[in-house]
């Protein structure tokens, strides 16, 4: 009986692992396609791809980082901030994401420096 339970657990773990690997591979494919279209200036298509990537694999920091960059390029600054924060939550030590976020904040802060009566 314990042997049967153990084999079920092992099978489930293996299945979950392969499902995760599939999700990551699908998300990665979307991210790569997004990069290639963004490099050609097709930012709306890139946003679609990276949004798909983050839906397929919500633990994929690269997807959120790229999405933040695209949102920034399209002027959707609140969404960009949110996506950068998600990416940094997933990978707090990723210097590339951090560097992007710092540059983003510099612009964001500069535009909010003024005072209104």
């Amino acid at each position, binding site marked *: 009986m314990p042997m049967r339970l153990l084999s079920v657990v092992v099978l489930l773990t293996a299945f979950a692992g392969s499902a995760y690997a599939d999700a990551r591979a699908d998300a990665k494919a979307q991210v790569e396609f997004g990069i290639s279209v963004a490099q050609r200036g097709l930012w709306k298509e890139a946003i679609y791809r990276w949004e798909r990537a983050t839906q397929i694999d919500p633990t994929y920091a690269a997807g959120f980082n790229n999405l933040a960059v695209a949102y920034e390029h399209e002027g959707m600054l609140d969404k960009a901030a949110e996506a950068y924060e998600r990416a940094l939550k997933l990978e707090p030590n990723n210097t590339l994401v951090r560097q992007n976020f710092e540059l983003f904040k510099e612009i964001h802060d500069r535009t909010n420096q*003024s005072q209104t009566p």
Partner: protein
Amino acid sequence: MTGRISLKLLSCVLAVGVAGCASFYEIPIETPIAAKLDVSSFQRVFIAGFIAGGTDDVDGNLETVRLLRSQLRMKSNLRVVDADVLPLVDVASGRGPEGQAAGPGAEPAQTPGTVEIRNEKDLQPYEHIFADADYWKRIGEEYQNPLIVTGTVLFTPHSQSGMVQRETEVIDRLGRRYIEPVREYMERKGFILQEKFIFIDGRSGAQIHSESLREERLYNQNDNTPALSSYFELMDEIIPRFLSTLSTQRVRGSRVLIK
């Protein structure tokens, strides 16, 4: 010898491998910053004039009006009203042709040409003019109801001493040159530019927005940078922020996309 060749081969293979597996890409982006003010109901903009002070070396009122008008002509869809700069100090102190409009609080403190505005406190007695809706409405009627831009300009000399890091060229014993950071005590002088832009609806005379911006620049004491050059340097920093109030600006930069 064979070892050296194999090492070179290995490094080449590694380099090709790294290039082939590049997992990040730098990409140029342009971030559009939406205008803070909806100016779609205005066809014209009138840079009316400023209450200025700080130093006598630069006429902050005339220079700011001239610069903003030329920038708006190039970078805005609004038609720029080309009219005489309003002598706001005189108006606010009840001495100018529109002096009566300045309200009961205004007192003619000094004779024209001798007004000394050195700091923010000195600006205060004149600032009531910006809230005088009747005055601005009359100005608006005169220039076909434009968006009116006015405010204060304070361009003051400033000096500061302390430790500064600078790069210096060093030649070692073998005659090789390299750059080394050196920290040293330095006395520096420069200027601070404080501008408050007030946006007034020429149809009603009411204030619709205001922005306070500040920039400073310090130079080595021996540089002798003219005040006017420094003023333009500081305005270079301030103008994009001023323009972003009226029209969408695009900020260029680059970001990294990750695989």
